[in-house]
């Protein structure tokens, strides 16, 4: 008979380490926090039942140091490892090694991670499961092949170099004449840049929304969804503000969620996961990738569904079954999460490491703060700049925005610059306020 873990190792740092610690403590599970030398005075270490140093500051020697992490779990008597997000959270090999050493990896099965974690493999699985993906051509030998594809799919399209990457060599084409004009130039450019002229095309989504569905599976065929989050507000592919539910029509929301569940069921997914979709203005939605872990923005979902996803991860991993049931899950109200980063928004968001000399987080109704910092805490320069997540819940989106503005105005962080002034601008933006938000929001609506 299964029982809750007696002790787990937290193989992460910062706010997510604290989040996991809180969930474990509420379930009566002891925590061992694995930490690098740079984090010895961090809040998760200070609050943990036990802590164990697993290496020096650089992540490859500590938070990515598989041997030390596994040894730390084994010598401390932990029965399971929670990887948080980032670092080793989506590393199938690490998940497999945990199992080999008799440790439960709190996440999906290793094979799920490798199958759905690889982007090409994930697209193929989506097609098999009947989940729409952005239509793409194969390699295009010449303009006539490109023209045939364009006739089939329709404009706009995006030309990409097969050997390219990171956005380089991409051209958006809006018409046949556009395509004719650009095709051979693009070939030449691809040859010059990557030594390979091969091109392919994908449907180009103008001003899509980034919508992601929170799913949860028990690994035994049962998968539920916990509705969606709208994460369209991004700066250089980094999410800035997440909210739920989205402003999409109820029918479309339901269809996307149903697709995500279908995909997760297709691979018999276990634990918490997120299926990301791009949604265009005509209501088309396209699977882009699946994240096989708890996400930074999971509190948005927790606030609107009154669930505890990290506790649920522990329960499912411990073999106690999934408590979540689709019929009992409903959306109540609206939640917005802001990522407060120690960055200077006035100077191109450059990191602002240093000592937080004073900090005063907001409180009162509907406000949740997930933060690992405190007055006197030195932000190490080795890791990311996230210092807090502020989440505001209210019955409606409008009220949640007002509440978040109120909360930010009572927040004080001294000693380092933060992104709060930038967040206030986003909250005050008229396009944001009416939900007119797409992935190009910051570039298009926030450039001064």
């Amino acid at each position: 008979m299964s029982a809750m873990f007696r002790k787990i190792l937290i193989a992460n740092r910062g706010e997510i380490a604290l989040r996991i610690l809180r969930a474990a403590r509420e379930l009566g599970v002891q925590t061992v926090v694995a930490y690098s030398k740079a984090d010895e005075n961090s809040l998760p270490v200070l609050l943990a039942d036990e802590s164990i140093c697993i290496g020096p500051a650089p992540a490859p020697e500590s938070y990515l140091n598989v041997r030390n992490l596994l040894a730390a779990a084994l010598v401390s008597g932990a029965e399971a490892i929670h990887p948080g997000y980032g670092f080793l959270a989506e590393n199938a090999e690490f998940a497999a090694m945990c199992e080999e050493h008799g440790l439960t990896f709190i996440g999906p099965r290793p094979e799920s991670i490798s199958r759905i974690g690889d982007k090409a493999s994930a697209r193929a699985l989506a097609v098999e499961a009947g989940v729409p993906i952005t239509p793409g051509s194969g390699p295009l030998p010449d303009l006539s092949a490109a023209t045939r594809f364009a006739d089939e799919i329709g404009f706009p399209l995006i030309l990409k170099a097969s050997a390219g990457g990171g956005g380089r060599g991409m051209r958006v084409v809006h018409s046949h004449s556009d395509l004719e004009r650009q095709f051979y130039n693009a070939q030449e450019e691809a040859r010059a840049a990557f030594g390979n002229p091969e091109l392919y095309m994908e449907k180009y989504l103008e001003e899509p929304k980034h919508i992601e569905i929170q799913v949860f599976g028990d690994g035994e065929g049962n998968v539920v969804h916990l509705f969606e989050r709208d994460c369209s507000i991004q700066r250089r592919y980094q999410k800035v503000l997440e909210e739920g539910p989205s402003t999409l029509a109820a029918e479309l929301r339901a269809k996307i969620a149903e697709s995500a569940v279908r995909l997760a069921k297709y691979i018999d997914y276990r634990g918490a996961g997120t299926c990301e979709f791009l949604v265009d203005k005509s209501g088309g939605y396209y699977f882009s990738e699946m994240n096989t872990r708890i996400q930074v923005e999971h509190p948005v979902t927790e606030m609107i569904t009154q669930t505890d996803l990290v506790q649920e991860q522990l329960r499912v991993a411990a073999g106690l079954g999934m408590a979540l049931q689709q019929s009992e899950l409903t959306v109540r109200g609206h939640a917005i999460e802001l990522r407060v980063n120690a960055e200077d928004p006035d100077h191109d968001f450059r990191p602002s490491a240093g000592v937080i000399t004073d900090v005063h987080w907001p409180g009162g109704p509907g406000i949740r703060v997930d933060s690992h910092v405190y007055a006197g805490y030195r932000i190490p320069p080795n890791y990311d700049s996230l210092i807090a997540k502020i989440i505001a819940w209210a019955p409606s989106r409008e009220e949640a925005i007002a509440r978040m503005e109120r909360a930010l105005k009572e927040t004080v962080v001294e000693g380092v610059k933060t992104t709060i002034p930038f967040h206030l601008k986003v909250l005050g933006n008229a396009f944001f306020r009416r939900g007119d938000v797409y992935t190009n929001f910051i570039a298009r609506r926030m450039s001064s």
Partner: protein
Amino acid sequence: MDVKEIRRLLEALAATDVREFTYETGDYKLTLKRGEEARQTLTYLPPAAAPMQQVPAQAVQSSAPAPETAAPVAASASSPAARLIEVQAPIVGTFYASPAPDAGPFVKVGDRVAAGTVLCIIEAMKLMNEIEAEGAGVVREVLVGNGEPVEYGQVLFRIEPA
């Protein structure tokens, strides 16, 4: 700035212990000095904002069992043990003082060691990692008991260099 504003400024200043005040714009310069001058002035230097290092994406450190050198050897800061060299654990694992359960310890307090002398074993994931001395000296302290877990950087021995 008119007289009324200056007066309000003076009121505000009166409530503080500010001794010297200068305010300069393109149009004018205002200087106020009160009482004794400060004997010493210190300026705050903001900590150099080091550029944040990118965390390498999903790089798993190769875990091939390479011979471990007791890397972070550091002289302890001050005081009685000032001359002693600390041997710290380079990996996480279980400390073994002897090569086998029924064997004697690799080293005891008072033992003389040379560079390369095995001091202990740290077992991590069923691999026995021998920890060697980096230089010659005399073992002055053994800080961990046989079979105890050790974390990265934990001090295992203190050695007086020869």
